[in-house]
């Protein structure tokens, strides 16, 4: 098991290095001048542009730039000299001249928002998707199953921005089921109640789409597993149907769900762009989108790299977790 984990760690590091290099190549060879972009739309003063170019290190050769970027990740990085020196401590992902802030700080503000959004949503959709999937499988072909099919159809067809807006219009404005999410995002540590209140609809929006997928997946996985020979063996032992379902069927049927949930969670942590935009949440998705719109290149590099990092790490966690769930994987 130790050898397996260390091997996977080494491979993950290699992947991250490759991704960072690829992202940096794209960044360096985009048809934009990062230095010119630092001084606003109508700035034509070559003096300022060249000064900024030197300050941010864009005048250095490509590989030196890449190396400085990697070095900054571990040791921090300073831009410019003297009184105007800007210091971004490790892990430094660069400096956004447009926002006048270290990218790491910007991400540090946005990541908890996205994490809060993702963690609540995943709990909701796992509960809903697994529950409904099991019910649909157990009462296959009957009314519960048919209703779940309708739910799956709607959930997979509706885009999240539409779901979000519909929820806003009906749940909040028309039916007054929950009060209008007042004000801005509040951190969980500050006020958990307000945190949950503001995030409730975004959670619901995301969970709706994912729960539909999970319902469909769990239903077919449970049905497939129920037809396995070892379930017949369990029945032949004289076990009750609830024990067969709870202990024998679900253990095997839900194992692939762990992989799926881990990867979907990682995907969301990279930024739930549409949901964050609809509900005006200052998360990673919104940070990335506004950076793209404004050609704020350091932020684009950083968010892309972060998303890749999260996916690679979650993949690793999921694989290790899976080895604990399925003993057949352990030997490999």
């Amino acid at each position, binding site marked *: 098991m130790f050898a397996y984990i260390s091997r996977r760690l080494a491979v993950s590091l290699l992947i991250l290095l490759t991704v960072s290099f690829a992202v940096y190549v794209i960044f360096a060879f985009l048809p934009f001048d990062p230095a010119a972009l630092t001084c606003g739309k109508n700035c034509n003063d070559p003096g300022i542009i060249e000064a900024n170019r030197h300050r941010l290190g864009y005048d250095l050769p490509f590989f030196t730039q890449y190396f400085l970027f990697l070095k900054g990740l571990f040791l921090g990085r300073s831009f410019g000299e003297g009184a105007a020196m800007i210091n971004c401590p490790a892990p430094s992902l660069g400096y956004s001249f447009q926002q006048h802030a270290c990218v790491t700080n910007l991400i540090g503000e946005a990541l908890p928002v996205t994490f809060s959004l993702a963690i609540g949503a995943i709990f909701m959709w796992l509960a809903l998707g697994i529950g409904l999937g099991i019910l649909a499988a157990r009462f296959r072909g009957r009314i519960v199953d048919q209703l779940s099919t309708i739910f799956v159809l709607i959930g997979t067809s509706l885009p999240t921005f539409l779901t979000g807006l519909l929820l806003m219009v009906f749940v909040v404005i028309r039916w007054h089921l929950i009060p209008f999410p007042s004000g801005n995002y509040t951190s969980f540590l500050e006020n958990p109640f307000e945190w949950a209140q503001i995030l409730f609809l975004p959670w619901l929006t995301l969970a709706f789409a994912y729960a539909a997928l999970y319902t469909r997946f769990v239903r077919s996985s449970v049905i497939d597993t129920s037809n396995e*020979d070892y379930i017949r*063996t369990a029945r032949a032992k*004289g076990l009750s149907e609830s024990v067969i379902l709870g202990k024998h069927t679900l253990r095997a049927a839900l194992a692939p769900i762990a992989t799926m949930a881990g990867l979907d969670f990682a995907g969301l942590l990279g930024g739930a762009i549409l949901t964050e935009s609809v509900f005006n949440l200052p998360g990673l998705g919104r940070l990335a989108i506004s950076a793209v719109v404004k050609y704020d290149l350091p932020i684009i590099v950083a968010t892309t790299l972060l998303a890749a990092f999260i996916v690679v790490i979650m993949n690793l966690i999921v694989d290790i977790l899976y080895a604990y769930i399925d003993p*057949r994987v352990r030997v490999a």
Partner: protein
Amino acid sequence: MTLLKVENLSVDFPTPDGLVSAVHETSFEISAGETLAIVGESGSGKTVTNLALMGLIPPRTANISGSAKFESHAGPIDLLSMDRNELRQYRGKDIAMIFQDPMSALHPFYTIGDQIIEAHQIHNKVDLKVSKARAIELLELVGIQGADTRIKAFPHQFSGGMRQRVMIAMALVNNPLLLIADEPTTALDVTVQAQIIKLLEDLQKEFKMAMILITHDMGVVAGAADRVNVMYAGRIVESANVRDLYANPLMPYTQGLLASVPRMDRPHTNRLSAIPGQPPSMIALPSGCSFNPRCGRKDEVGANKCETQMPELTPRGIGHLSRCFIGEGA
């Protein structure tokens, strides 16, 4: 003493294409300690018969009728009229079952110890330690070396033959009165097959249990069975003591089955003999005797009798029943 008496068991599966009569008015009985072999081709109803007795046919998928009187530890019961939940208390305790493919019949995520202990725990209100000791005892009995450590191994760490031994240990953990072995050797290598059959025979004597051995291997039947039921298209077509059956098969289908067994003690002929044709579609059985389109001897009956009438299963000697017009009334 009669342990199990099955009368007029029918199992029909409604399908979109029509009613599949997998088992049709089958009656047989088995005494305590006896081995009954049920032989026949795939789809002849051997497995469905036994799944019905075990209550393992999924609810609402089949119409099951008939009766199956069984002398359980707790007194006589009828397996077919019993509530599914009630039947559960006898399943795995009084009647146990082992299956064809030991590769897929054990849960891949649990150790074999957990699975055997679970089988013991359901029917015995005892401490886990007692069940564990029992599991080790059984594993040793079925010939698993180092049972006290192997108990922590997962199914994928065993070979096919070893897994079948584990299945047998699990089935016997509660001293069943009847063991149903559904093609226990079909998925195994030939050398392992012989070992498993030998093991089953030895354990049967030791546990004094009756056994229903479902197989299509006539060699296995000859070595292990006391009585044989030959099934074809959902019906018993011949039933006899194993010696009688081999010495004097009456139904042409049985004769064909026996003729198709390769024999080492006879001179080589060019090819093994085979029964011509295919087993019939269970949705549209041929009229008359189900076997008539494949039967080489129907001319002996004449007057299209085989195509129009279904022969009855009639006695043709002591304990020998046959469903054929040939030799009827003789």
